[in-house]
């Protein structure tokens, strides 16, 4: 008996099989190819009378965390003129699918997103509905000039910001009291504080750099804001300066100063795990956005406090990172006017107040009429911080794009692993950044 093909493999089958393999290996192309400008809508029946269509509004949301998600649903429950359907999608998927949503013939009417360059790039493609009217006579008319600036592309507004949050060095009040230390304002005091904590056997700083190490960019952003200022930082992220420059080298020199003070396990933690050693009093401070307060246990919430990253050069105007969230309306929506009306409702003082009270993480309102007196002391202090600062940026990826963020993650992680190779790392970073900007 020969041992011929118990599995039936012949050359002919093989060729057919390999052709099939071609399909599975490159199937990703099909996803994109189907979403071209000529693509037919994949969902939606297109039915309904004009009156029904005018009542229906689809809200595509990336608020996947339980608190904000429920808060948004509650706020939307107050809309009476429209039947609003909320589709919640995980942020990473939302981000990847966003171009597809917006180019679809029946795009969702109103979508959650981030203010700034990431929204403007869609406005540039003509995919967003002009909401300037809301800034002239709607709820957004009372928003600050800084917010209006952030929402404007080519003289028109395409974004309605509804809340924002801030980044700072978070710590526990009781731990600082126990160690006999307090918040500092200058870099020398800060280095002294780090030394002091380390000699007590406490890890002065934590962060979460496992998996995608985007957290490493928080310190880069802040050190650049403190060393070179917000204007330089924005221009750097827009490709107008080189990462391989003396200015950025000065930033990395400061970064190198603080590297020895990080808890060594920060490399293996995700952003959530990095809060745990502070909860256990084994570490002191964490430079993070307010969303992270949810990572600490319930009974420590009132114990949390923060201070701003200390000043390095007093001649540089102060700046803070305050990522701004809000809503945009799709140009291809079935009911863009309805979407605009819902965005206007969400921007109202009452809706913002309700959202911030119900969402667990501390958010700040964009509407000046929101009564902040009832908000927690932490939020009050956050408002004070942002009102007192000269300039506001958002975050590395929001001020540039996700691909440039990828080059930052690579460069900063290499730097954290081998701070001595800074020259090579910055040269490579600039090469990678040029590739991103050339597209």
């Amino acid at each position: 008996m020969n041992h011929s093909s118990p599995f039936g493999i012949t050359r002919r089958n093989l060729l057919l099989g390999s052709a099939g393999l071609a399909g599975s290996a490159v199937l990703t192309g099909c996803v994109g190819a189907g979403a071209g400008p000529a693509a037919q809508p994949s969902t939606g029946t297109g039915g309904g009378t004009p009156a029904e269509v005018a009542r229906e509004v689809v809200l595509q949301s990336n608020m996947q965390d339980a608190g904000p998600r429920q808060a948004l649903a509650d706020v939307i429950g107050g809309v009476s003129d429209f039947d609003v359907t909320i589709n919640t999608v995980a942020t990473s998927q939302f981000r990847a699918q966003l171009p597809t949503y917006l180019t679809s013939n029946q795009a969702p009417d109103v979508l959650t997103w981030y203010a700034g360059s990431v929204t403007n790039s869609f406005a540039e493609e003509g995919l967003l509905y002009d909401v300037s009217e809301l800034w002239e006579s709607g709820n957004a008319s009372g928003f600050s000039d800084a917010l209006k600036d952030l929402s404007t592309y080519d003289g028109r507004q395409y974004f309605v910001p509804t809340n924002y949050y801030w980044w700072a060095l978070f710590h526990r009040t009781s731990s600082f009291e126990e160690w006999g230390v307090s918040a500092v304002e200058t870099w020398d005091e800060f280095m002294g504080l780090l030394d002091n904590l380390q000699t007590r056997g406490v890890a002065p700083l934590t962060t979460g750099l496992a998996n995608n190490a985007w957290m490493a960019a928080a310190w880069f952003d802040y050190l650049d804001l403190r060393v070179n200022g917000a204007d330089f930082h924005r221009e750097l992220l827009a490709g107008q300066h080189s990462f391989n420059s003396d200015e950025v080298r000065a930033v990395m020199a400061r970064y190198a100063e603080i590297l020895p003070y990080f808890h060594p396990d920060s490399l293996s933690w995700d952003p959530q795990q990095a809060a745990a050693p502070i909860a256990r009093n084994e570490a002191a401070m964490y430079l993070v956005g307010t969303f992270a307060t949810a990572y600490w246990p319930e009974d420590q919430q009132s114990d949390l406090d923060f201070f701003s990253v200390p000043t390095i050069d007093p001649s540089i105007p102060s700046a803070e990172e305050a990522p701004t969230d809000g809503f945009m309306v799709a140009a291809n929506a079935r009911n863009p006017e309805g979407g605009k009306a819902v965005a206007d409702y969400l921007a109202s003082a009452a809706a913002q107040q309700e959202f911030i009270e119900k969402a667990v993480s501390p958010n700040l309102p964009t509407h000046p009429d929101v009564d902040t007196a009832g908000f927690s002391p932490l939020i009050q202090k956050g408002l004070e911080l942002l009102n007192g600062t000269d300039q506001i940026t958002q975050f590395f990826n929001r001020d540039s794009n996700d691909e440039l963020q990828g080059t930052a993650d690579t460069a900063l992680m290499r730097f954290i692993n081998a701070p001595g190779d800074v020259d090579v790392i910055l040269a490579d970073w600039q090469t990678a950044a040029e590739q991103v900007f050339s597209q």
Partner: protein
Amino acid sequence: MSTSAPPATAAAPGEGRRPRRSRLGRRVPPVVWFFLLVPLAVELFWVFWPALNSFWLSTTTWGGVGVAEPVGTANYERLLADPIFRTALWNNVLWVFGFGGLSVVGGLALAVALNQPRRFVGVYRTVIFLPMVISMAVTGLFWRIVYAPGGPVNNTLELVGLGHLQQQWLANPDTALGAVLVAAVWRQVGYIMVLYLAGLKGCDPSLEEAAAVDGANAWQRFWRVVMPQLAGVNTVIFAITVIDSLRTFDIVWVMTRGGPFNQSQLLSTYMFEQAFSYVNLGYASAIAVVIFALAILFIITYVARQARAEEDDL
């Protein structure tokens, strides 16, 4: 003793009466052609068309919005100059040999060891196969805990006095890929074992007995008598292993996301990052085409050689 009297010959008389040639020559009714055309159309639409699209996309630059711009071979030129792509390609080569080699050697050794009738052998087989029923993503999460700074691996090293070997396995660029590889092999080895066990069950024990009577030692019996009978299984395992190693994505994505600084990036994770994090669909398609070419290269060379060897045997 041997109960496997060749079934082929037993079935032959009844089957043999029907003249084979005439059946092949008989006209196929149109309705059969129709039924064949339906799956062909489905296959063309769902498999070949997207595949061709991907080849086309790889010669364009497209951000998912608007019209794709043709750029000729620019994406492939960019690949050649891209240090992350080079790292990913090299990692993928390491991965094919590491993942394929370790799981095949381990699976074969376990299959041979557990092919003998012993007490609790069923329990062992089940336990070794068990990881296979867990999804790659869950395997990755589980091993992340195993490799955590205060996790079982580091604690065990401390316990046996090898504390100086403790490290952050997934955060250290020198160990990250290897650490993920171990987790992937841990899951794959049971699968390969089961395939080899099935192959070993199909081997004719009388041949081995005859070789033993002729004075062949265990080593010779295994390589000269058993292995040739496993040729068919080997072909299947080779194909499965190469395909599995080239499409490995989830476990790396869950455990390291290609990090730290792209040192554990594979072609598949890099393709995903380019396509869905950065929405460079043209460039990502070029990476997909490279993956496809690699898979075809491996599989065609090996399986075509196997097929020729089998045809020569006939």
